[in-house]
């Protein structure tokens, strides 16, 4: 290494520089990098719990904003009422006890009434079909045997007249 030590400072100044810097004693202090390393490890240990707490807090705030109540029981009730309408059609045939409450809102009770009406409608339609026959009967003022007798009555008269 061709380093020339013939420099502008000179030996006297170098000697004084070394002497003065040797007199400077670094104050004793614990290494800060160890503290920062411990702190970093502690942070990584706490991080999952902090993350979970943050998520729970966010969910709580969201539920509070959605329901307007700070009570978790109300939150669960709200969730249940929102989930149940989707599962109601599956549960109504199996559990008849819940059908009155669940059928109060949806138009589930309507089908029985609509089914009952068509059954009633054909009956009047059949009755008018049957009613003309009594009208004919009443005009004839008697049963079928009488009709035969009335139709036969002039004929014997005619027959009788013819005879």
């Amino acid at each position, binding site marked *: 290494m061709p380093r*020339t030590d013939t420099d502008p*400072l000179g030996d006297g100044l170098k000697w004084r520089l070394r002497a*003065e810097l040797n007199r400077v004693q*670094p104050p004793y202090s614990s*290494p*800060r*990098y160890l503290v*920062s390393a411990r702190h970093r490890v502690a942070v990584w240990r706490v991080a999952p719990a902090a993350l979970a707490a943050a998520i729970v807090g966010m969910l709580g705030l969201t539920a509070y904003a959605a329901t307007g109540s700070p009570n978790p029981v109300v939150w669960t009730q709200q969730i249940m009422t929102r989930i149940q309408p989707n599962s109601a059609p599956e549960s109504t045939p199996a559990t008849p006890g819940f059908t009155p409450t669940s059928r109060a809102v949806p138009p589930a009770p309507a089908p029985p009434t609509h089914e009952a009406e068509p059954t009633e409608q054909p009956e009047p339609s059949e009755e008018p079909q049957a009613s003309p026959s009594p009208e004919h009967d009443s005009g004839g003022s008697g049963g079928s045997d009488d009709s035969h007798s009335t139709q036969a009555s002039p004929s014997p008269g005619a027959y009788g007249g013819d005879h």
Partner: protein
Amino acid sequence: MSDRGAEYRPGSKDDFDRLYRTAYPRVYRTLAAVLADPAEAEDCAQDAFVQAFAAWKRWRPSAPAEAWVHRIAVNRAISLRRRAKLRGVGEVLRRLGRPAPPDDPADTATQPDILNALRAIPPKLAAAIVLRHYHGYNNREIAFALGVSERTVGTRLKQAGERLRAILEPSFSLAEGSAFPSDSRGSYAED
């Protein structure tokens, strides 16, 4: 250099502890020559080791470990000096028109001349002087520690010597006349 021949493994905490024990007093003395406040020098040295420890896994054994820490420390010291200079400008502007407070004579008497002179010149020049004449770094090591080329190191050493001479020559010429012999004024050759 004290860690010449010392082998460190990147990422090894034991090796970093060893580096700290060896290099902390030397880094602190470099910073004490650059920064005026001892507490500031201590803070700066500790912060440099914190930063070095965070990057210890990325350190390459091809680079001298102590010079690497010196580089971090000197860069921090330069930033601190720059901030202190800006604060000083602010103080001057605040007390514009009023007379400046006189320096404490006790401080002036107790602080050594060379350290005061080193703190009066730019920190890059002061660090080059300390690294060369106190720690015994060669130009390559100084270049690595300061993040400059070896040619720049030569220039800086020359400039630092001239500035120090301008500050210290009157007192030295009175106190010890052979401090700056005319025949010893040469130039810093490249390593």
